[in-house]
């Protein structure tokens, strides 16, 4: 029954059928608490879409529009101030030295649609980012890049954070890391996400480890 609902919700999102997706979401709310609807319907549906994108079965435009729509649905039942929102670990997302914002926007939407709250740092260069992470006492930093030089700059971010004795976990994502699956270790990151739903899984895991 729950699986049927997840599949139907995912199919509606994939087809950009907002009316259908909203109907299923509202129907689920009559049977479950808002936080359970998010965790048991929205998150698995977005996970399926993320896996589909990794396999080449779902396109980025569908993942983006689904994430954005889902984010709005979740915001309507779990506003940013809701105590059921997952504010811990203190997390932030950034585009590093790059002007390609779509990947970050997708991950941000999917994390928020999964009940997380996180800082959106927009675009930053290395020193500005390190300073901000330390000032905000961020525990999980998600870095999105599209081009190779930016991916290689993650090494500087990690080194400077380490030199400042920060215990932040750095999670990277973006095309260079997909095309070279050794690169995230090479630059000193703690994890690499292949899709937005990977980011949810990684942050959830880190949240468990930090508690």
């Amino acid at each position, binding site marked *: 029954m729950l699986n049927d609902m997840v599949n139907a919700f995912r199919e509606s999102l994939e087809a*950009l059928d907002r009316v259908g997706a909203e109907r299923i979401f509202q129907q689920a709310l009559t049977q479950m608490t808002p936080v359970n609807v998010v965790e048991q319907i929205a998150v698995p549906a977005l996970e399926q879409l993320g896996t589909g994108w990794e396999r*080449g079965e*779902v*396109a*980025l*435009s*569908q993942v*983006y*529009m689904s994430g954005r729509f889902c984010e709005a649905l979740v915001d309507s039942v779990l506003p940013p101030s809701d105590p059921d929102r997952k504010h811990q670990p203190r997390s932030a997302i950034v585009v590093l030295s*790059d*002007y*390609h*914002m*779509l990947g970050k*926007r997708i991950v941000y939407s999917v994390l928020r649609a999964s009940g997380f709250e996180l800082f959106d740092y927009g675009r930053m260069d290395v020193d500005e980012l390190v300073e901000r992470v330390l000032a905000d006492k961020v525990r999980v930093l998600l870095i999105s890049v599209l*081009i*190779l*030089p*930016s991916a*290689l700059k993650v090494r500087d971010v990690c080194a400077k954070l380490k030199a400042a004795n920060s215990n932040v976990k750095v999670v990277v994502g973006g*095309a*260079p890391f997909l*095309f*070279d699956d*050794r*690169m995230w270790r090479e630059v000193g990151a703690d994890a690499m996400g292949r899709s937005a739903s990977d980011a949810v899984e990684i942050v959830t895991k880190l949240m468990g480890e930090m508690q």
Partner: protein
Amino acid sequence: MIPYSTNPLTMNSMQRTLTALGQHEPDRVPLFLLTTLHGAKELNMSIEEYFSRAEHVIEGQMRLLKKYRGDCLYPFFYASIETEAWGGTTHYLSDGPPLCGAPVIKCPEDVDTLQVPSVMDSPGLTRVLETIGGLKARVQNTVPIIGVAISPFSLPVMQMGFDHYIELIYEQPERFEKLMQANIAFSVEWSNAQLAAGATAICYFDPVSSTTNIPRELYLKTGQQVAKRAIAQIQGPTATHMASGRCLPIMSDIADTGTAVIGVSTLENLGLLKAAANKRMSLLGNLNGIEMRRWTPQQAELEVKRAIALAGRGGGLLLGDNHGEIPWQVPEEVLLAISDAVDRWGRYPLDWVEDWLAERDNGE
């Protein structure tokens, strides 16, 4: 040890390429090593200085052609040179391709008043045309000169940002069509100006059409229609490039746009792509440019062999990277190893292929 052909090379780069594009076997697999930024290294200049004058790029391309023994010249500067014509800016990096600055379309309503710029009024674009003319004077018809145009369908990623563009495609079809009309007019003028300056063909970069980015149903209604309209007006052959994106499910649809070549991703199997192209298009690719940064000469040779084994037979393969630009970080030793491997394993007939594939499959 599987023997390779030592047949002498009898063709120039143009003959080799045209034979391969005709789905016949030339003397050797054409090597389309799409180096751009490496020209600055050759001239010991910063990337910004290198792209500031046509003569730098002419000299850089000629040195790269000689050094790596490739089969084309690639007078591509950087993608945002096109958005400069629309009023955009470019940010130079010391170690990578120049990047596009803030979007020129700041809100969807801006599309309504968009003016199509004239190619000849853009200093950046005229510098590219001057480069193409200079290269043509050097090589005449012996080496293909590949011009570049960002497709009208993919240009909005730089004009307005990818997220806002996706929203426009889905939510504002009339405004999307207005933007496409403006971009097609620009792209056709830009492509034809390059052909008139001496380019042999136009590489039509269309990554948004990739199934990595949009589903096939949407491609058929948008990117494919735009490509058909634009390519029909481009007065020379085109090579559509997915810039690392997937395209296996839409190979036949891409061929229907009238393009001659498809630039394919390392994420997909070259043998399956060759079968799907079905001799209607040739393949350009699909070496992994990102991994290439850390290849050893042995890995480079293995990757070249793999690509040639999977797609070299019968012509129809131009060996290159999978993105349409070799990253700055790829060392010259790797590029030389690729060139050596093509010279060794790329000579037709490719009699080694069956044995090598059998050995590989048994090994796996």
